[in-house]
C-alpha cells in the first residue's frame, strides 16, 4: 500500500474528526448558555419525540427525516486528491449537508447542544466523525484487499440498520425520559 494512499486516507479521517469535534464543541458551548432547566425541558420533549419516531419506524411507518438528500459535489475531484479528501472528510464529519438517512442522526447535534458542555459535545460529534470516516476507510481497504464490493453488502444491510437505529432511538428516548423526570 502506497504512502500516498495512507496520507489521503489519514487526511480524510482527520478532516472528518475535526469537523465533528469543532461542531460538537461549538454546539456544546452555545447549549451551555441556556439554563439547565430549559435544556432539561427541551430534552424531555425530544425524548418523547424519539420514542414516538423510533416506535413508528419499528411499527413499519417510515418517516423520512428532514435532510439534504445529496452527495458531495463532483467538481471537488478536479481540485486534487488531498483537497478532495479534506473537503469530503469535513462534509461527512459534519454530516448535516449530506444525506442523513436516519432520525437517529439528529441525536448527535441535539445531544451535543443539550449537554451544554464543549468537551462532551465535541466527544459526541467527534465520535460520529471518527467512526464515519474510519468506516469508509475500512471499506476501501477491504475492497482493495478482498477484491470484492463490500459496499454492496452494506447496502443490503440497510433495513437491518434502520431497525437498529430505530431501536437505539427508543432506548435513548426511554432512558432520557426517565432520567429527566417525566
Amino acid at each position, binding site marked *: 500500500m502506497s504512502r500516498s494512499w495512507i496520507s489521503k486516507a489519514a487526511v480524510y479521517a482527520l478532516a472528518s474528526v475535526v469537523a465533528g469535534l469543532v461542531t460538537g464543541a461549538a454546539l456544546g458551548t452555545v447549549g451551555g448558555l441556556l439554563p439547565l432547566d430549559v435544556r432539561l425541558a427541551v430534552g424531555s420533549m425530544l425524548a418523547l419525540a424519539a420514542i414516538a419516531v423510533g416506535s413508528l419506524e419499528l411499527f413499519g411507518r*417510515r418517516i423520512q427525516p428532514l435532510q439534504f438528500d445529496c452527495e458531495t459535489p463532483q467538481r471537488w475531484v478536479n481540485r486534487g486528491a488531498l483537497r*478532495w479528501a479534506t473537503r469530503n472528510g469535513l462534509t461527512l464529519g459534519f*454530516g448535516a*449537508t449530506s444525506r442523513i438517512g436516519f432520525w437517529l442522526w439528529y441525536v448527535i447535534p441535539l445531544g451535543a447542544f443539550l449537554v451544554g458542555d464543549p468537551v462532551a459535545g465535541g466527544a459526541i460529534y467527534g465520535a*460520529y466523525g471518527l467512526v464515519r470516516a474510519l468506516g469508509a476507510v475500512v471499506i476501501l481497504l477491504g475492497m482493495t484487499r478482498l477484491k470484492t464490493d463490500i459496499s454492496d453488502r452494506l*447496502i443490503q444491510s440497510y433495513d437491518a440498520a434502520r431497525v437498529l437505529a430505530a431501536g437505539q432511538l427508543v432506548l435513548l428516548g426511554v432512558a432520557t425520559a426517565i432520567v429527566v423526570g417525566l
Partner: protein
Amino acid sequence: MLEGPSRLQGLPMLRLDQRESPPVHLPRSGGLRVLTKSTLLTVLLPAVGLGVLVGAFARSSSGIGWIFALLLSSAVVTAFAQQTLP
C-alpha cells in the same frame, strides 16, 4: 483506489454528485413496512426494557454519565448505519 478520486464514484458512501444546490427533503411518512412480530420481540421490547433499566439506574446514580454514554453510542450507531445508505 484513492490515487484517483474519480474512481471512487462507484462507492455509495463517497459517491459524488453533479448537483450544485442540494434539494431539501422534508419529513414525510410512508415507505416499506418493516415490522414483523420478531422485530417487535427482538428490538422494540428489549429497547424499551433496556431504556427503563438504564433510566432507573441512571436516576439513582450519576444520570448525566449514562445519558452521555447513550449519546456516544448513538453517534457510533448512526455512523455505522449511514454506511448502508443506498
